């Protein structure tokens, strides 16, 4: 396994009484597209700022490409940041903006021109060199900011909520382009966002942050289907959370008594053995609850529920239901062809493999 390109070791950032980043350790491999996902105040932007060198951590270290860069200023780090408001120099043309980093590195004019043209080509803005910043649309400015960053070939590209200011359609388009760009360049990207759809669209790996800590870290599929913590389960999409008591630990599985009845959940590989009587949480994604009697191996009955709300959402029907056992409120996502109405009482089931035992 290759040595990780970026290593954060026990990084802490404290502002007076406020702990912005609480003991974060993270390794990022070269060529990966990492997303820092979290609500505002989760510390993701502070962490990015520490990576970029704009903020020094209160304690802990930052290593990039094997060197300790904790206190190295942004100018001398192999990172470049794309700011939320792009920060394009308003008094310079597109060409001069993109060329700025090269001028600082004393690249010769001819070489500079070649590389600027190339970078503009990569982001799809060939021939835009002579334009002025105020003549560009939001999406175009975004690309110029990207071009300016990639032209100096940094080891790590840091993006601070770069798509926040764009319209939905353009945002989705840019998400795809960012992924293509990252694959083409092979540069390590670290992308901060609060939008979990965006995180799923672009990331190779997602770090879910909450209150200065990383609650979950892994590939998108894993983080979504098997979230590690309560926060991760509820922040990334909807989740039904059942509080229960562990009754038996059977090695790979754990039996849990929940308000919807007894269930069997796969134990987390990294989790500790659950003691009998321990209070646990089980998470089920809305789309994993199905209507109908439990049939076949590995399918659990969850009792009966009455639908309280049904809303057609295009690709699915979003339903609220109240279960008869334990009066638990549930969210369901049913396929559109399944016609249901408010007030229907239905049996519900789920596959045991889709249930997730949460750490807290």
């Amino acid at each position, binding site marked *: 396994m290759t040595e990780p390109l970026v290593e954060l070791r026990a990084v802490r950032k404290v502002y007076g009484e406020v702990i912005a980043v609480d003991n974060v350790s993270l390794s990022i491999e070269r060529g990966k597209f990492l997303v820092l996902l979290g609500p505002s105040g989760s510390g993701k932007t502070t962490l990015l700022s520490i990576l*970029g*060198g*704009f903020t020094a951590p209160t304690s802990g270290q930052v290593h990039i490409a094997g060197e300790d860069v904790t206190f190295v*200023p*942004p*100018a*001398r780090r192999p*990172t*470049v*940041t794309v*700011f939320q*408001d792009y*920060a394009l*120099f*308003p*008094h310079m043309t597109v060409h001069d903006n993109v060329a*700025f*980093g090269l001028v*600082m*590195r004393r690249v010769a004019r001819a070489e500079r021109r070649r590389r600027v043209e190339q970078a503009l080509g990569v982001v799809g803005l060939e021939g835009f060199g002579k334009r002025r910043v105020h003549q560009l649309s939001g999406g175009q400015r975004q690309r110029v900011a990207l071009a*300016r960053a990639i032209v*100096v070939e940094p080891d790590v590209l840091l993006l601070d909520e770069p798509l926040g200011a764009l319209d939905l359609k353009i945002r989705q388009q840019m998400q795809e382009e960012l992924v293509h760009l990252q694959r083409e360049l092979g540069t390590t990207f670290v992308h901060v966002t609060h939008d979990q759809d965006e995180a799923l669209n672009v990331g190779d790996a997602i770090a879910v942050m909450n209150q200065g800590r990383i609650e979950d870290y892994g590939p998108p599929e894993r983080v979504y289907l098997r979230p590690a913590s309560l926060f991760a389960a509820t922040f990334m999409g909807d989740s039904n959370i059942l509080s229960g008591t562990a009754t038996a630990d059977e090695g790979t599985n754990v039996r849990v008594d929940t308000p919807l009845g007894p269930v069997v959940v796969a134990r987390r590989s990294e989790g500790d053995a659950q003691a009998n009587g321990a209070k646990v949480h089980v998470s089920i994604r809305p789309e994993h609850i199905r209507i109908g009697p439990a049939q076949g191996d590995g399918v659990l009955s969850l009792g009966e529920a009455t639908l309280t709300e049904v809303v057609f959402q295009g690709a699915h029907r979003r339903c609220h239901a109240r279960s008869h056992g334990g009066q638990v409120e549930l969210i369901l996502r049913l396929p559109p062809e399944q016609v249901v109405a408010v007030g229907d009482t239905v049996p519900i089931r789920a596959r045991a493999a889709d249930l997730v035992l949460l750490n807290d």
Partner: protein
Amino acid sequence: MAELAKTRHQLGGFPLTRWAVYPALLFTLVFFVAPLAAMLVVSFWQRIEGHLQATWTLANYDKFFTRSYLLDTLFNSIEVTVLTTVVSIVIAYPLAYILAYRVPLRWQKVLLILAVLPFWTAYVVRSYSWLLVLSDNGVLNNVLIGAGLIDAPLKLAYTRAATVLGFVHFFVMLLTLTIYANLVQINPSYRSAAADLGASAMQIFLRVTLPLSIPGVVVGAFLTFVITIGDYITPQILGGSTEILVPQAIMLQVSRAANFPMASVMSMTLMVVVVAVYLLSSRYLKMDRL
């Protein structure tokens, strides 16, 4: 159209406020434009035997541009004004920069107000107070003699240097204010981005901060120029009698000879100079910015 009128009636009448701007426009017409027009007209008349006569001649202009002692006043004025503008900017810019970027945020407004407060001494009073500092038995000479650095008092008052000093004192405060206001509204992300791309502090200043602050400097410089070139008090109190500037010449014509035509000629010339400077710097000057 009828529909619209009906709605207006329901809303309570014709929008009277459509006329709201006219009182001010009328006032400006009567008390600004008309006087300037009158002055232009009078510059072509002459004062003969104690009375103003509508002779319609260029004689006054001729006199102004051929009599060297009159033309000198124009050159002196321009020199003093340019000198004042340059020196004031050179002193004020670093001060504004320090306030905007080196002083902790908490102290910025306080220090700014502190630096600008003496701006509100009356013009007459301020020029006079420099006399107290610069004259032969003034504070500066007293201190220097008392410290044994010089034997006889330096002749500082009643010189061009004193005039420029008096002006610079005023405009350093004005320019600090305008340049500071300009610097703080420059998006800090620009400087962060430049630093991120490898720029040193000096490079950030030369390539980002300075270019973006030029418009603010030009506005300040323009104000300095206009106010200085038309100022009577400071050169009158501090400048002495060896050199006369245009405003002083104008006042001489008015008070001693009641020679309005001549005074008008000189005023018109001053206006032309100012308009020329405005046109030169108009790229940076939009009226809403003032």
